[in-house]
């Protein structure tokens, strides 16, 4: 029974929740919209008071200018190649390891903490040794010089996430498949992996976004347009005594687009991935 008083209280509470959520949404959306505006408006209007959201002189000049800076659009391509390669490799290695660890019950718990501890280290603590190593191998300013450390950093994360998903699968299902005529590999590919597709997607996107936006290691390893990544390119729109707000915003927008698309695409799995994978891990 909803009484008159109860209904009012519910209304007030709903309104409160709505206001808080609106404020949070605004905090996320307003900067994004502002970036779109800056990317399109001519330089003279950046700091107009009162602020102009969208200029009447909006054009694509900043996007054209990007190609003149540093690696230009090549940086996006570099990032893309590096992210795809490193993500795929981390996923393959990490998923295989996670499956093994999930099924070696007793030892698995200790190992997974160690794997995760890699991820807890601050990146700054890693970057110098990584740089020295990569220089020693002679991979400075190459794709592989970026891909290798990214695999090393992300594989433990994949192991940790995927192990949680594997632990959710009752072993009886696998044993059933074994008596039904599957070997270990065919159990993995025909029964187990199809069951963790949401986990694979969520984890893959996490890893991909990490690499796509990674800055520090990129800064140390890359030098020329042969390998400069988008995240490293972004600060180079600050020149001498000036910040090229328009170009920087345009480039930010280009960098953010794939992340947004991926986010929308797998939103459904994302929350599940965070809770399921994490809690059980």
């Amino acid at each position, binding site marked *: 029974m909803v009484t008159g008083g109860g209904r009012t209280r519910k209304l007030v509470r709903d309104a409160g929740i709505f206001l808080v959520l609106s404020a949070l949404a605004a905090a996320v959306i307003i900067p994004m919209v502002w970036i779109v505006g800056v990317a399109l408006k001519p330089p003279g209007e950046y700091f107009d008071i009162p602020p102009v959201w969208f200029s009447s002189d909006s054009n694509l000049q900043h996007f054209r200018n990007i190609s003149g800076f540093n690696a230009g659009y090549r940086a996006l391509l570099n990032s893309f190649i590096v992210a795809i390669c490193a993500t795929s490799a981390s996923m393959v290695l990490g998923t295989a390891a996670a499956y093994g660890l999930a099924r070696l019950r007793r030892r698995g718990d200790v190992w997974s903490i160690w794997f995760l501890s890699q991820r807890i280290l601050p990146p700054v603590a890693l970057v110098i040794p990584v740089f020295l190593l990569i220089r020693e191998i002679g991979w400075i300013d190459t794709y592989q010089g970026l891909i290798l450390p990214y695999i090393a950093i992300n594989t433990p994360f994949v192991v940790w996430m995927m192990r949680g998903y594997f632990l959710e699968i*009752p072993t*009886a*299902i696998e*044993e*059933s*498949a*074994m*008596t*039904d*005529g*599957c*070997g270990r590999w*065919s159990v993995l590919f025909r*029964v187990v992996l*199809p*069951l963790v597709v949401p986990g694979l997607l969520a984890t893959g996107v996490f890893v991909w976004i990490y690499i796509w936006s990674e800055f520090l290691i990129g800064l140390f390893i890359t030098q020329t347009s042969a390998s400069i990544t988008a995240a490293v390119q972004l600060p180079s729109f600050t020149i001498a005594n000036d910040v090229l707000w328009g170009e920087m915003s345009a480039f930010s927008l280009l960098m953010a687009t794939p992340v947004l698309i991926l986010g929308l695409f797998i939103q459904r799995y994302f929350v599940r991935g965070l809770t399921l994978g994490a809690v059980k891990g």
Partner: protein
Amino acid sequence: MSSITIQNARKVFGRKEKVVALDDVSIEIEDGEFFVVVGPSGSGKTSLLRIIAGLEQADAGRVYLDEDDVTNRRPRDRDVAMVFQDYALYPQLRVRDNIGFGLKRRKVPKDVIAAKVDELAEMLGLKELLDRRPGQLSGGERQRVALARAIAREPRAFLMDEPLSNLDANLRTATRTELAQLHQRLRTTTVFVTHDQVDAMSLGERVAVMRDGNIEQLDTPSGLYERPVSLFVAAFIGSPPINLVETQVTDGTVTVGEAEVPVPGASLEGRSVIVGVRPADFEDEAFALDPSWPKLPVAVTVRKDLGSDAEVVFAVDAKPVRRDDVSSALAGGEFAEVDLVHGRDVPMFAARINAKSSSRIGHNLQLTIDPGRIYLFDPDSGSLILGPGRPEAAVVTSEA
């Protein structure tokens, strides 16, 4: 279809703290037999099944299917089908593909699989469900799909690991009947593991009762009931469980409460014994077959009317039997440990009597005991000294 032979199987788990799951087990299961392995949890019954399936490797011993030594074969090369407690269906596959999975793995042509799936769906009443996924099915339906999946491959044997324990009481009874019918029809060798003695008694052609990694007794269901080798088996088999008191043979009788029950055989005179009386071997005096049977006056504390007969529960003034073998056999069972009504530490007995008995809660009742059906056990070893399943009350002397 195959016979299954297990020779001296041993399995120990754990490195530091060793748990002996199977001590030294040898069994021969005949081709086409419905063989039940029953025992309390931790008795090693599931390990035994998993060793037959190849999901677990025995530390010692051998497994044969007919003449083939399959000890070192992988599960998929043994050609046995397993039905699991929680069904273990493939959640991402439709019922149709679940049933056909094993056939597909064995490269059976598609049209043959489809025909087989349809045939089984017809047989098990799954026709409407073929295009659903396991998540959309009820427990009983899942159980049927799991059965269909096992049957589809026409394996050498079915291995069933507590397949009924997730079903509610009515469904359980119905599924039991279905399993019995299926076995009549298919005659596939079946090894059925359960902790439920009703499953064991109603399904098994032969039943192995396991305890602490060993087979305590292997017999037909009625053999287990009539001729239990030990207190453990006697307490485990039968529902409600057998009533036990500890006493002494004096002047050729044993005392159960106020009843004096004659015991044949002079050799037992003066010996300490544990007396067992099955609930069904009591009767209301008014319905007793023989007026000369020993009388036991009791005060009824609980009466359960079961329709066909009535169950009464009462306290008996005697020394209760507290032993590890009895309590492990009764663990989880419907067993009244002490007299809760009067707060006394005396054994509570159950009796199955004629439903027309006028006994009521709180009232006195005169019961009779069939003297030819009492069991006597040795309190030291727990083994049977004397039981009802005997020609002329044979006294068991050599059983250790």
